Structures are given as structure tokens and as C-alpha cells.
């Protein structure tokens, strides 16, 4: 008898192992008390806990400095990560040195963990150049402005690692709005089929500029989107650094050991405007903001560390001083930073030397040196 081609495929697994849990993983209450989770034990030593806190404190200070620089006309625009420090810092902390980060444009916290000089990234927002760090040195790809597109780059990179039997993992960041873009879905499709070691990290900060999650999707949660591609959908309290670390760490380790990709939805809140050009009073209330402030990730971590007796005043002061130092470096690098040589516009378009590029470069060079018409230039 002919095979019934419409019959269910034998051996097909159900979706139970992929579905996100009913509640996002949370280990720290806002007051800093630890609630143990049997599936997600805290595997961070005291020094690491302090280092995560330090990175969050530095991130917040540098973020504030960038906003200040924008207000002073030193940056054209800036996309703040205020309130998302735990989601970024703790997730990037779950990576190993050879792993790669593919950021969107808001991942200052990840950059701090990867020791990318923040000013090098801020040149994009100042308009002096489009990037100024070496992605291979920090294993931190260029900031990517078109939403969700970097998910494919992270997936391709991870495919390459797998083909090469290289145990590195890639992690790509995007937001709740990014989960609506076709590229993130194509990326999850590819990652699932290719079993690429990539972790998709969604910071659900509740708004895509002004559009709230309810207008963004009818999915039960953003983590559910993974299921259709054969990826497990995970959720964590993104303002809880311990939960974020634990959930991400497990996904990263699974990807590294051949367990395939995963999607993590970190529930967080963008405390600042979308960018410095945005006016959030038009779409969210002061009450909502005040409510969100009570879940502040840095205060939560501070509470926790103090409860454990790990954070004395001197240590806290030391972090604050380091944060000031970072902010000072950023200010010095960015304030009145001159643009470079305009002729550099032609230098990186192609690897190959091209006569047409050279001709237009010569044109600009001539314009730069031409005697002004009717007086001094």
C-alpha cells in the first residue's frame, strides 16, 4: 500500500521541551533576597558577582555621560540602555572569551564587559566615523542599526564555527520590535536547521520606540516565537542579573556542546527614551516609569550584595570612582573630537584599488585644496 504522505512524521518530537516556562526565571527579588531555583543554581563566585555589579555601575555612568554629551551637542543622537544593564552585562558575562557578541545599537553594557572602549562606539553617534573598534580584538561585532539584521550575521558566524569544529558560540542582541523583523525569523530558521551554536537574546524592554508590546505581537510571549523554528524559548527576569546569567549560561553551554541554538526573552524596561530624539511622555505615564524604577537592576544587585556582606562602602566607592574614570575618558575622547580626513571616505569602500574611486577621491582632494572663489576660504 502506498505510504500516506500526509500522515504525521514518525518520531517527531512534541514541543514540550521547547515551550517557555509559565513564569520567567527570577532568582533575586527587588529587595535583593535570593530565591533558589532548582534548575538554575547560582554558579557565580563572590568576585564575579562584584565584577558584574561593577560593570553595571560603569555602564550606567557612561550611559549618563553619553546622554549629557548629546545634550551638549557633542553627539547627534544616543540610544540609552538605562534600566537594561543587568540584561546586557549578565548575559554577556555568560560567554567565554572566544565567543562573539553581535549587538544592535543599545548594548553599551555588553561592550563594557567586552572591554570595548565606549568612545569608540560613540563615534557612530557623533558622526565622526561609523565605528572605531576592532571587532576581532574584542569579538564584538559592529553596532547594527537596521533592526534584526545582525541576527543573520551571528547565525552565519556560528554556522562557520560549527563547520570548522570550533567550540565558540555567538550571541545576538535585539529587542522586542526586532522579533517582528523577517531577518530574525530567517535567522532562527537557519540556526535551527543548521544547529548553529547561536543564542538569540531578546531584551523585551516593552517598547519599540513608542509602540508597546501589545501592538507588536499577538504571541503569548516573545519566547514562544522560538518554538516554530525548533528552538527552545527561555524567559528570565532581565532586571535580575543572577537569573539572566543563569539562563543565558545554560543556553550558551548547550549551544557550545552541540545542543543547538536557543532564544532567551529577558523582561526588562527601557527607563530612558528610545533615543535622545524621542519624547516618551507622549506614550507612557509617569506612574508606569515610577513602577518600573522599583525593579531597577542595579539597586537590586546592590541590595543582594549588601545582604551577603560582599559590598562595603569602600568597594562601592571604588566602583563609582572607576565609573567616573570611564566617563571622563569618554568625555575626553568625544568632546569636540574632530572628524578625520575627508579623503578617508574613499579608503575602505573596496579592498581592491579602483580607478573610479581614485578619480572621485582626487576630485574631493582638488576641492579641498582649490583656491576659494572671491576670497579666503
Amino acid at each position: 500500500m502506498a505510504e500516506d504522505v500526509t500522515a504525521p512524521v514518525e518520531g517527531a518530537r512534541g514541543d514540550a521541551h521547547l515551550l517557555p516556562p509559565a513564569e520567567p526565571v527570577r532568582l533575586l527579588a527587588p529587595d535583593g533576597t535570593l530565591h533558589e531555583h532548582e534548575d538554575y543554581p547560582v554558579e557565580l563566585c563572590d568576585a564575579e558577582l562584584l565584577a558584574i555589579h561593577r560593570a553595571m555601575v560603569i555602564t550606567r555612568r557612561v550611559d549618563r555621560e553619553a546622554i549629557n554629551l548629546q545634550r551638549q551637542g557633542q553627539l547627534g543622537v544616543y540610544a540609552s540602555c538605562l534600566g537594561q544593564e543587568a540584561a546586557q552585562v549578565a548575559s554577556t558575562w555568560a560567554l567565554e572569551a572566544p565567543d562573539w557578541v553581535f549587538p544592535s545599537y543599545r548594548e553599551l553594557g555588553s561592550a563594557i564587559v567586552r572591554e570595548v572602549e565606549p568612545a569608540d562606539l560613540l563615534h557612530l553617534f557623533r558622526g565622526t566615523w561609523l565605528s572605531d573598534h576592532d571587532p576581532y580584538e574584542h569579538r564584538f561585532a559592529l553596532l547594527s542599526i537596521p533592526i534584526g539584521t545582525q541576527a543573520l550575521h551571528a547565525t552565519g558566524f556560528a554556522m562557520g564555527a560549527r563547520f570548522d569544529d570550533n567550540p565558540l558560540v555567538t550571541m545576538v542582541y535585539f529587542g522586542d520590535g526586532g522579533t517582528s523583523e523577517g531577518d530574525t525569523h530567517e535567522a532562527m530558521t537557519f540556526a535551527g536547521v543548521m544547529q548553529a551554536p547561536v543564542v538569540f537574546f531578546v531584551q523585551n524592554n516593552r517598547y519599540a520606540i513608542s509602540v508597546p508590546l501589545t501592538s507588536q505581537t499577538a504571541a503569548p510571549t516573545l519566547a514562544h516565537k522560538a518554538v516554530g523554528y525548533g528552538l527552545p524559548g527561555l524567559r528570565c527576569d532581565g532586571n535580575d542579573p543572577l537569573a539572566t546569567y543563569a539562563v543565558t549560561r545554560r543556553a550558551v553551554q548547550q549551544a557550545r556542546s552541540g545542543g543547538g541554538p536557543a532564544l532567551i526573552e529577558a523582561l526588562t524596561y527601557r527607563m530612558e527614551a528610545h533615543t535622545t530624539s524621542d519624547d516618551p511622555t507622549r506614550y507612557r505615564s509617569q506612574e508606569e516609569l515610577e513602577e518600573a524604577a522599583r525593579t531597577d537592576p542595579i539597586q537590586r544587585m546592590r541590595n543582594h550584595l549588601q545582604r551577603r556582606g560582599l559590598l562595603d562602602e569602600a568597594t562601592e566607592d571604588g566602583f563609582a570612582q572607576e565609573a567616573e574614570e570611564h566617563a571622563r575618558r569618554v568625555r575626553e575622547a568625544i568632546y569636540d573630537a574632530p572628524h578625520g580626513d575627508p579623503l578617508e571616505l574613499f579608503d575602505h569602500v573596496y579592498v581592491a584599488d579602483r580607478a573610479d574611486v581614485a578619480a572621485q577621491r582626487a576630485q574631493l582632494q582638488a576641492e579641498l585644496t582649490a583656491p576659494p572663489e572671491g576670497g579666503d576660504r
Partner: protein
Amino acid sequence: MSVTLAQAINRALTEAMAQDDRVLVFGEDVGRLGGVFRVTDGLQARFGDRRCFDTPLAESGIIGTAIGLAMYGYRPVAEMQFDGFTYPAFEQIVSHLAKLRNRSRGTLRLPVTVRIPYGGGIGAVEHHSESPESYWVHTAGLTVVTPGTPEDGYALTREAIASDDPVILLEPKRRYWMKSDIELPVTAPPHTSALVRRAGEDVTIVCYGPMVRTALEAAEAAAEEGWSLEVVDLRSLSPLDTDTVVASVRRTGRAVVVHEAPRTLGMGAEIAARVQEAAFYHLEAPVLRATGFDTPYPPAKLESYWLPDVDRILDLVERAMAY
């Protein structure tokens, strides 16, 4: 040895993969099936499914992952199954593939070859006969080449894969089965400058890709009318070898540009502009354009009315000669 264009490109892919483990070939149906035009026939069997693999049906995904693979250190050769299906990948090509190197201040290299079977003339259904070259040529950061012969199909494929810049390789699908008597491998470099395929004195015919053969046929027919046509095959659309075109027009004083793509803002517009800039006093007639019309590509039964052919070229030759 008699070789078709499809075979020549296949041979180039095979040799590039054999010589360099980092060369990967992937796209829709390129593995087991060998591609809908069989251009990748035998690659998966020979090199395995890590080097030549089928992808999900997602063009943006193909180009986006090619970028990631290139960042990792591979030399991806990605196939877009048909011209009309490059549009889902437009953002990845224009916003990232073309610009990432510049954005990185020269830190990144993206040696990606994007193979696109393009153009009409095979009686295909809608979306399978487009000529999208102007989009790519208009985008800084891309190299755009298109072979008009099997020999160039081989050479341009090898050069594209060897290039450290992203290359759009436009393969004229109606010429896949065109045969040439050639010896492979073709070694004489490079094939990115324009080539005078037929010398003549009266009018320069500037063409590329699928129109090279049509232009040569027009030159044959014109000879019977007593007109001597010089046929210049551009081969590379970006960079554009203006020197070879201008040198020819300075001799003939007349030029007709031929392409399948719609006329407005097609390659003909750029070539006409460059020729009048560089050879104004040599021109005996305005630069004319034998092209597709500024309409959507027609249904198959009407494509012969739309595509430039020998008659359309000769009409313009006559007009140019009448000045």
C-alpha cells in the same frame, strides 16, 4: 572542447572549491539537485554537505549568513535562485554586504560572491526574468560582473571568488546553454576590463551579459547593410571600464548601448553620460539606447516584443548613421 556557460561556471566553482577549503557554495536547491540550472551539479557529491549545502528558502537568510560566514573566515558563494528573488535579500546586500567593510574602517573583509541567474528570454513565469543590475551598480561597495561567453563565465567566476570584495555575479540565464569551443582553465587575467569583441568603424555597440550575442548578431546583419559595427562587451558593470568604451567611440563617433533592463537609469544612461563627458567633440550622433521598456517585465508570450533584439539595435544604428 565544447563547453556551455553553465558548464564553465560549474567548472570554475569546482576548481575554486578544490583549491581552497574556505570556499563554500550554498543556496536553494544547489546541493542534492545541483541547482535549478544545474550550475552546481556534482559539488555536494564531491565536496560534501558542509562545503555545498541547501539552505532554507529564505534569500535574506542566505546573504545574511554569508556575511557571518565571511566574517568567520570563509569565502561564501551564495546563489540567489532567480533575479526576482534577490529582492528579499536587498537589505542584507545593500545595507550590510556592500557597506560593512567601509563601516568597519577597513577592518572587515567580505569575500562573498552572490551568483544571480538573470535576464529574460526563456519564456519564464513572472519574477524570473528581471535585470536588476542597476540596483547593485548604484550601491558603492559592490563589484558587479556579467559574462557574455562561456570563457568569461569561467574566468569571472574564478575572479569573483578570489576577490576580497563582495561580487555580484550576474549569469545570463538564457545563455547558460550557449556553447563555445574553449580550453579550460582560462588563465589570462583579468576579465573585468571591457573587451572589443568585434572591431568596426561606424558605430560602437556597448553591451554585456545576454546582449553580447545579440549585439554580435546585429553586427553580422549590419555588415550586410554596409555598416561596420564595433561590439564592446563591458563584462564588468562596476567598476565600469569607461576607457575602452570611450576609445571606441572616439574612433566611430557613434554609440548604441544595449541592455535588457528598462531604459530609465539603466546602464545606458550612465554610459551615455560618460561618453559625452569624455568624447563630446568626437560624437557624430547622440548616444542611443536599445533596451527593455519602462514597464514591468512582460508575460512570456509578449517578451519578444519587449526584449531588445537585432532589429531594435539596427533601427538605432540607422538613426545614429542618419545624423
